[in-house]
């Protein structure tokens, strides 16, 4: 009898434990402070803010450690738990956590309507003081807004351009300074491409340009440079229905047909395109960010040290050429990346939300400008520019064009439309744009047929 009692008790305990484990997550204990005492007396109840981030640049872990140490001098009661995810697996881990209702308080990434649609992205407008807002350069905060609400703060603005091997440009007599200053048109690029494409003495082909064909990044850049901000405009109207999309696709098709980019482009992955650029098989690499300046400088050092074999390269940042109908410098593709705030399912702790914002501000403040500096990107905050004045890591020859590219950044339409439209746009990009773009690169569709299909499906899905 005694045994049976213990057995029954043990079984009950097991079931209760399982039931508790499967149940809803307990809400964190309520803090003493409510929203009303903001700015009056600091709540010092111990709290933990979870941060999931990435190796934003090679030494970012040192940055974040220092930023947290500085933060803890002022807020010793707020523990910041950070985890550095890998670029390859991190997004999956975050997606799972978010859709399970348990994302970290702060996540590093670009703004995305899907985050908002879960209901767990946390607006931070009520915590943003005028001082903070005014510190950001015009337009930079908008990159972390969705539907008019602020969900995050950018650490930098990514800029997708083209990057060139200076030796090859010089050999072909290309005036890259003029291109950096004024931009260039597709026709000007096609003229230059004739001089940049040739058969090398070892029998291999030197292409004018190399890009990857496994993503639609190249299509994004070329359509932006055709004056199309996206498949839809800021009001949500489908705009890939006129001659501009035919011209953009025609330009891409010509690049393949004329051998300006490799005929294998459709199957070239991002890593392969970098290898080809490093091997001197391509004069210009597409989707080149100003950080290539640092990456290539490091590679040059490795070549000097005998760790890597190959040709040392001097890097030149170039803007993406634009359609003749687009006036001026042309549009740059890119967007903000930084920390986005989240709350968890069932959590409703106002003080914790405030603490999350405090950590976000600490990780995005003046000293955090080191990320933009390391990535050779223009700063997004005045305080950051001041902090790193005279310490710029970017080469003078490239930082000027990077600033111009940022000034001509194409608006991120996906952030100004509603959640449902943003979801449809994403579906259109993945299920319509991508296969059609790949079929175009593979020569399986003509530009006209591809444009017609984009138009028909776009009008069905995005009307």
């Amino acid at each position, binding site marked *: *009898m005694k*045994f*049976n009692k213990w*057995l*029954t008790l*043990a*079984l009950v305990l*097991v079931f209760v434990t*399982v039931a508790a484990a*499967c149940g809803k997550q307990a809400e964190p204990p309520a803090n003493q402070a409510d929203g009303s005492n903001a700015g009056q007396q600091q709540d010092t109840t111990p709290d933990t803010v979870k941060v999931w981030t990435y190796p934003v640049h090679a030494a970012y872990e040192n940055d974040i450690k220092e930023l947290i140490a500085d933060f803890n001098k002022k807020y010793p009661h707020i523990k910041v738990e950070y985890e550095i995810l890998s670029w390859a697996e991190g997004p*999956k881990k975050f*997606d*799972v956590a*978010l*859709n*399970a*209702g348990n994302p970290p308080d702060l996540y590093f990434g670009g703004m995305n309507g*899907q985050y908002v*649609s*879960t*209901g*767990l992205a946390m607006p931070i407008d009520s915590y943003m003081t005028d001082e903070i807002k005014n510190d950001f350069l015009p337009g930079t905060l908008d990159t972390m807004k969705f539907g008019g609400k602020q969900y995050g703060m950018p650490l930098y603005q990514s800029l997708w351009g083209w990057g060139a091997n200076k030796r090859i440009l010089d050999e072909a007599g290309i005036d890259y300074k003029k291109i950096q200053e004024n931009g260039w048109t597709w026709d000007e690029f096609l003229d230059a491409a004739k001089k940049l494409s040739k058969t090398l003495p070892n029998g291999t082909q030197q292409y004018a340009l190399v890009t990857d*064909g*496994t993503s639609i990044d190249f299509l994004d850049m070329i359509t932006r440079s055709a004056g199309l901000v996206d498949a839809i405009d800021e009001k949500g109207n489908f705009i890939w229905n006129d001659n501009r999309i035919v011209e953009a696709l025609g330009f891409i098709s010509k690049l393949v047909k004329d051998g300006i980019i*490799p005929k*294998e482009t*459709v*199957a*070239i*992955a991002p890593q*392969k395109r970098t290898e080809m650029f490093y091997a001197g098989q391509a004069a210009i690499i597409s989707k080149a960010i100003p950080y290539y300046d640092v990456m290539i400088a490091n590679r040059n050092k490795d070549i000097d040290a005998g760790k890597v074999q190959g040709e040392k390269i001097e890097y030149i940042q170039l803007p993406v050429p634009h359609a003749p109908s687009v006036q001026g410098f042309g549009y740059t593709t890119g967007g903000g990346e930084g920390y986005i705030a989240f709350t968890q*399912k069932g959590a409703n702790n106002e003080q914790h939300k405030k603490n999350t914002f405090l950590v976000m501000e600490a990780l995005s403040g003046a000293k955090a400008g080191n990320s933009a500096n390391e990535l050779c990107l223009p700063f997004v905050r005045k305080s950051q520019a001041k902090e790193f004045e005279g310490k710029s890591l970017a080469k003078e020859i490239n930082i000027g064009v990077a600033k111009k590219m940022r000034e001509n950044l194409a608006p991120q339409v996906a952030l100004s439309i509603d959640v449902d439209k943003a*979801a449809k746009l*994403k*579906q259109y990009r*993945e*299920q319509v744009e*991508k*296969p*059609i773009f*790949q*079929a175009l*690169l*593979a020569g*399986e569709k003509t530009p006209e047929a591809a444009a017609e299909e984009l138009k028909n499906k776009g009008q069905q899905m995005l009307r």
Partner: protein
Amino acid sequence: MKTNNVRAIPGPKAPHSRFVQFWKDYGWAYLFILAPVLLFLIFTLYPVVSAFLMSFQKYNVLHSKWIGFDNYAYMFTDNVFWKSIKNTVIFTVGTVPVNIAITFILAFFIFQMKQSWQTFFKASLYLPAVASGVTISLVWLAIFDPTASGLMNRVIGLFGLDPVLWLGQSNKALFSLMLMSYLGAHGSGIILYLAAMGGIPKSLYEAADIDHASGWTKFSKITWPLLKPTTLYLAVTGVITSFQVFISVYLMTQGGPNFATTTIAYLIYEAAFVFYDFGLASAQSFVLAGLIILVSVIQFKYFSSDIEY
């Protein structure tokens, strides 16, 4: 004190006495099976029931909405879904029989060898099974390099053929993934076939020799029928694995180009983790499960047979 010696007259049995007796007799047994039962309930039954309910919902982590059969209706009208079914069926039909044939032929020749050589070949051919699918996919990605310097293109270049966009063209990408499966993952099948071949009584072949049976007759009347259970097992597990093909698609083609390699498993992943449409992904999962069950039942019905030695 005397009263202590008086035995109480037994009253009616307590209502729970049978339960107690049951626990006394079988308590340990139930305790031992409790752990696997709990694991099954938590990690299999609960997710399956939850996913089934989710397939009728527009899933949202905070407020899912019941939408009846909308996910199923959308799925059956979606061209990409039908393409994925077609690709999955082509992949399965194109790989399972061929792989079984390759496995059988390899096992047949290895079986004729001395024991030491058998061990060597068994170990060698089993090695790919030890490597992870991710590693194998990345190696094959390099082999299928689209430029003339790619390994596979160099091989065909020896025969004077032009470089091929193995993964870049709609009419070749799925075949390339099938080719990848032909050239690996036969190890476990070979071991099963060798074990089954070793289990066929020699007396049957001796009797066949007495009757002057030809090699083909011995193979078709003795070897093949007696290996049928092994073949059925390999066919069923092969079909299940092929229907779930994902790693190579995810790492090598992402379903492209032009959906040429989008399989149902990849479509489920895309619905869940690219579009956050977990309801649709659940509906697709149940269709996949239904297909696998259907095909497995058909295989058992038409290919299974009792073997008596």
